[in-house]
C-alpha cells in the first residue's frame, strides 16, 4: 500500500499529547512543498481520531493511518493550498 509513496520527511511525535502532535504536524506540513508526503509517528492513542480530522479540516490527504499498538503512524500529503 505504501511502497510507491516517497516520504520527504519523518517527524517523531512520541511522548506528546494533544494538542502538540497536531500542532507540530501542522507546522511541518506548512513548511513542506505541495504534494510532498510527511510521515508522523505518535504515541497518543487520540491521534488515531485526530489525524483523520486534521486531514478533513485542512485538505491535506491522509495517505496512511496505521495503528501499531504502542505507536501510531500517519502519512499525510500536503495540500496545494492550506
Amino acid at each position, binding site marked *: 500500500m505504501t511502497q510507491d509513496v516517497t516520504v520527504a520527511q519523518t517527524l517523531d511525535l512520541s*511522548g506528546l*499529547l*494533544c*494538542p502538540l502532535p497536531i*500542532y507540530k504536524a*501542522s507546522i511541518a506540513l506548512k513548511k513542506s512543498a505541495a504534494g510532498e508526503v510527511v510521515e508522523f509517528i505518535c504515541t497518543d492513542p487520540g491521534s488515531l481520531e485526530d489525524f483523520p*480530522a*486534521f486531514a478533513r479540516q485542512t485538505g491535506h490527504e491522509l495517505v496512511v493511518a496505521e495503528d501499531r499498538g504502542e505507536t501510531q503512524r500517519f502519512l499525510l500529503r500536503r495540500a496545494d493550498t492550506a
Partner: protein
Amino acid sequence: MSTKEQNGTRRLALVASKGALDEAYPPLILAATAASLGWEVGIYFTFYGLDILHKDKHKKLKVSPIGNPAAPVTVPTLVGALPGMTKASTRMMKKWLDESNLPGIPEFLDMARDNDVKLFACSTTMGVMGVEESDLIEGCDVAGAAAFLDFAADADVQMFI
C-alpha cells in the same frame, strides 16, 4: 453567515471565564488545535479568566483542592482549607503536566499569539478588578462584550469555558 460560508475559513469563539491552572488549559488547547486546523480563533477572557492574560499571574495559576473533589491532592474539604494545600495541589498538577510534556501556560500563550489567535481582554473585568492594560501580556485587545459578540456571531463553533 459563518466565516466558513463567507471565506471558507472556520472560526472558533471561546469565552475563558476561569483562572485556575487546570481551567486555563482547555481554552488554550482548543485554540492551539483550531489554529492548527487553519481556523480563525478568538478567546474572550473575562472575570477570573482574565488572570490568564495577566503578565505575572498567568505564570503562577493554581489548583485549589477546595470544592474540587477531582483535585490532584484529594483531602476532605476542611483539610483542603489548611495552609499549603493549594500549593500541594498545584505542585502535583504541575508535576503531571511536566511528565506529560505539556507546555506551560506562558508557552501556550506564545503559541496562540504566533497563530494570530485574538486575545480579548474583558474591559468590564479590568474595571471591576482594577487591572490596567499595562498589567496584561503583549498582544491583547481590550474589548467589551459587543466586540466579542461581533466576532462570535460569525463563528462556526462557540464555547463558554
